[in-house]
């Protein structure tokens, strides 16, 4: 059976020894020293650091071993199946990493003269055009650092557009379905909108009647994921778009689920005005344990003028790529410089490798894999597939463990924890909110059939464990680096330790095992 590494690795502050160090810095030449003296010593008292920071003191080998041990207590796509729904944990091609780490990117300063960075500008420009083609939009900004950052930018562009039309004071409401990602309402609020939630119908799709009742002259727009978070395609999309556009609202596409439809149908063609793309989901860039990602947005022609500065552009006459700041209606900037370039380059390499046919095949196989799992998992005792019986899913499916909970007391979270014991990552749990005891499963195209079968077998085994020995599951996992954690303790004001100094001050956590 699977057993994750258990290093009992101490917090880094407990390692090392006084006077050790892990890095030598280039020295200061004698002549420079004698000409300047130690300038830092002459800093005024008001701004001089007198007490050195309490950083650990370690040799290089200790640092490397510490983090290598930690890495062994971390599960990644390279170790196995990672069906975390809505996160599209597909394979991260090694060639993409290798290229992104080249000094032709890593040693480029963003303020360099344009003539010295034509290569990277060409890559970024071409990528933006490819993304525009894939999403069916007119122009793409690569600036947002992540999907949610793209959502914020998209919502701000909605706002800028209504302001431009003299409508901003009136259009204060942003509509999101109850099945939406949490980032949608959060981004809308940050952009100054009031969030109006519309319910889903019995098919898990937007309730058209409710939508029609919700739209008005106050509607700024609708944020929609299609296929939605249940993995179901919003087949009424034409009517949805018309409903929103008819009242003067804009249609925003949450690109979290774009992987399912690449080359099949494009958000722009469905009527979406603004589209964000999660580069780390759809285009195979590593998620880095939480980031960095990249969240470009594409917009229709009418909205292009609001995109942040600079846009990466091509001057036909001079045959040169350049940074275009001359965009008077631009919303300005949402971060420094141009975007997460080292991530975007990986996406460029990924698209170069797959081409149009490869992207379409990735979409098809991701959908085939998800529907294969639907078929197999439906047979498992205690699980049910709510909403839209008989309709195909796209890239993901959401099962409910409600029957199992009722019959055995075992919850979706217990199933998720038990999956870890078998050496796989668990699906997303308790999302979307409209499914009780939700297990949201997204296999992606990067998994072989045998691994899918193993996943099905594991869930079968877990189901029989639930019905024979439910207590076993309630204490899972057993084989991960640690057993089930007390997450309440981590957030309770009396026991909270959010930093080493806070921990030392309070010293309330029993310092077990270290």
């Amino acid at each position: 059976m699977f057993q994750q590494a258990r290093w009992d690795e101490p917090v880094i502050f407990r390692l090392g020894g006084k006077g050790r160090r892990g890095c030598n810095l280039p020295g200061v030449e004698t002549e420079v020293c004698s000409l300047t003296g130690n300038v830092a010593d002459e800093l005024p008292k008001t701004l001089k650091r007198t007490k050195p920071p309490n950083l650990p003191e370690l040799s290089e080998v200790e640092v490397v071993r510490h983090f290598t041990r930690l890495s062994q207590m971390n599960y990644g796509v390279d170790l196995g199946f990672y069906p975390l729904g809505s996160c599209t944990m597909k394979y991260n091609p090694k060639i993409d990493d290798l290229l992104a780490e080249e000094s032709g990117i890593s040693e480029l300063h963003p303020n360099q003269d344009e003539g010295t960075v034509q290569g990277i500008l060409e890559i970024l420009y071409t990528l933006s055009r490819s993304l525009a083609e894939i999403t069916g939009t007119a122009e793409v900004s690569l600036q947002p650092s992540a999907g949610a950052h793209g959502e914020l930018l998209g919502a701000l562009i909605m706002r800028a557009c209504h302001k431009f039309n003299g409508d901003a004071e009136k259009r204060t409401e942003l509509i999101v379905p109850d099945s939406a990602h949490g980032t949608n309402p959060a981004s809308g609020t940050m952009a100054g909108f009031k969030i109006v939630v519309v319910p889903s119908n019995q098919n898990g799709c937007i309730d058209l009647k409710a939508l029609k009742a919700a739209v008005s002259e106050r509607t700024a727009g609708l944020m929609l994921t299609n296929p939605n978070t249940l993995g179901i395609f919003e087949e009424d999309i034409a009517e949805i778009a018309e409903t929103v556009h008819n009242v003067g609202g804009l249609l925003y596409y949450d690109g979290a689920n774009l992987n399912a439809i690449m080359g099949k149908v494009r958000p722009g063609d469905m009527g979406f005005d603004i589209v964000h793309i999660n580069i780390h989901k759809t285009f195979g860039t590593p998620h880095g344990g939480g980031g960095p990602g990249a969240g470009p947005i594409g917009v229709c022609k009418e909205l292009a003028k609001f995109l942040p500065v600079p846009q990466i552009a091509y001057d036909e006459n001079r045959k040169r790529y350049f940074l275009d700041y001359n965009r008077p209606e631009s919303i300005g900037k949402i971060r420094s410089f141009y975007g997460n370039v080292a991530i975007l380059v990986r996406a460029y390499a990924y698209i170069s490798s797959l081409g149009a046919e490869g992207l379409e095949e990735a979409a098809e196989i991701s959908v085939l894999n998800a529907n294969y799992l639907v078929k197999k998992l439906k047979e498992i005792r205690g699980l049910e597939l709510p909403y839209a019986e008989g309709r195909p899913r796209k890239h993901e499916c959401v099962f409910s463990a409600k029957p199992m909970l009722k019959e055995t007391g075992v919850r979706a979270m217990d199933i998720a924890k038990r999956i870890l014991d078998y050496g796989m990552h668990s699906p997303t749990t308790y999302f979307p909110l409209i499914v009780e005891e939700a297990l949201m499963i997204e296999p992606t195209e990067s998994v072989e059939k045998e691994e899918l079968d193993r996943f099905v077998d594991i869930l079968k085994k877990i189901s029989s464990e639930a019905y024979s020995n439910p207590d076993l599951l309630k204490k899972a996992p057993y084989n991960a680096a640690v057993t089930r954690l007390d997450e309440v303790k981590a957030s309770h004001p009396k026991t909270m330790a959010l930093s080493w100094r806070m921990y030392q001050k309070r010293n309330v956590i029993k310092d077990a095992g270290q």
Partner: protein
Amino acid sequence: MPKSHVHPYIPNATLETKHEMMQQIGIKNIDELYADVPEKFRLKRRLNLPKPLSEHEVREHVETLLHKNKRRTDIPTFLGAGCWPHHVPAAVDNIVQRTEFSTSYTPYQPEISQGMLQAMFEYQSIICELTAMDVANSSMYDWASALGEAVRMAVRMNNRTEVVVPKLVHPERYATLQTYVEPLKLQIKSVDYNPETGLLNIENLKRQVSEKTTAVYIENPSYLGFVETQVEEIAEITHDRGALFIAGVDPTSLGVLKPPGEYDADIVVGEGQPLGNHLNFGGPLLGLFACRGQMELIRQMPGRVIGMTTTLSGDKTGFCMALQTREQHIRRERATSNICTNEALCAVASAAYLALLGPRGLRELGEIIMMKTQYAMQELAKIKGVKTPLFKAPHFKEFTVNFDKTGKTVRAINQTLLKRYGIHGGKNISKEFPDLGQTALCCVTEVHSQADLDLLAKALGNVLRKKR
């Protein structure tokens, strides 16, 4: 249509496997799975993209493009302005290239993600030590967006309507702040600087800060490299009016400069890129975000925070995400921020970097940077017509070089430097701050040798001696 090409990233694309799976599902064609996509929207052609390349071709193609770029190592470069060249230890690169880290997602299942969680906790802890604050989050996108979030947090705390910033703030940070606070209809007020020293004009600050002020923000070192020494006074004026004090820092300065926690900052933001992350043409960067330990502040913090805990059985220490009820996936429209994906791996790089440097290394780094910066200023000041720095104050890493008396523009000077000498001069800030005339912002760090600095001085001397 059957395809003969099986892509190496898509294992189930073989005809046999596809057929077997389709048969099990009960379909004859994968298109049946797209039957609910309205006919009129379906793309009836292939996407118009370049034809797929083999791995060898991808490599050649991308490398050919990358070779068109001139790297910092090809042309001595004196650019900083928010993205700084530093030595990245090989051990740091090696650690973040471990794919157990890099190919993992946000640690939603903590038991199987302890490695990343502990690394993030250590990053947060190290940032706290560096800044002398109690709590740090596990990263924001960059300094600019961290500033935007910090001001929004201040507004959540005190519901006031104005924010006060220095006139000489980084223009990109200012622009980002504008974008972030525009929906709040917050007014941004700028404080004058002392033309001699560049430091905040305290009298002007006093006039601008009022009961309407949500926060006062300073940068230290400033965008133009000088160090703001009046921090205690600024903190006092800010707190007297009940506003929050936000300090923005370049963390590489904190081995020598007083940490903001020691001059009463309530929130600290900054740029973590120089701590073990490469230039990467300006991204990814790493937004630092820390605050004091009061619960009311912590509850309003944006972003993910990792906490220490124990197993339910209580016999072992572990780590998990804490205070998730502030975050978008739980709190939705009432979340403190929409941020989800952040810059986790860059934060791991920074934790490893600071662990390698230790307190002595960090102090040394600050000393080296200040000496080399000072040397560069001394050498450039010898050139006729050049005034550097513009302000009489200690400088860290960056400094202004004014060319008004040479009769030449920064643009022209930089072009000649690049074309004739293969040197990339400082950033042209003449348009950003017209009051400062023809001025460049130069950056010097530990990676610049005396020879590099002499080369710049010599080339600049030659360029300026020539009539045209």
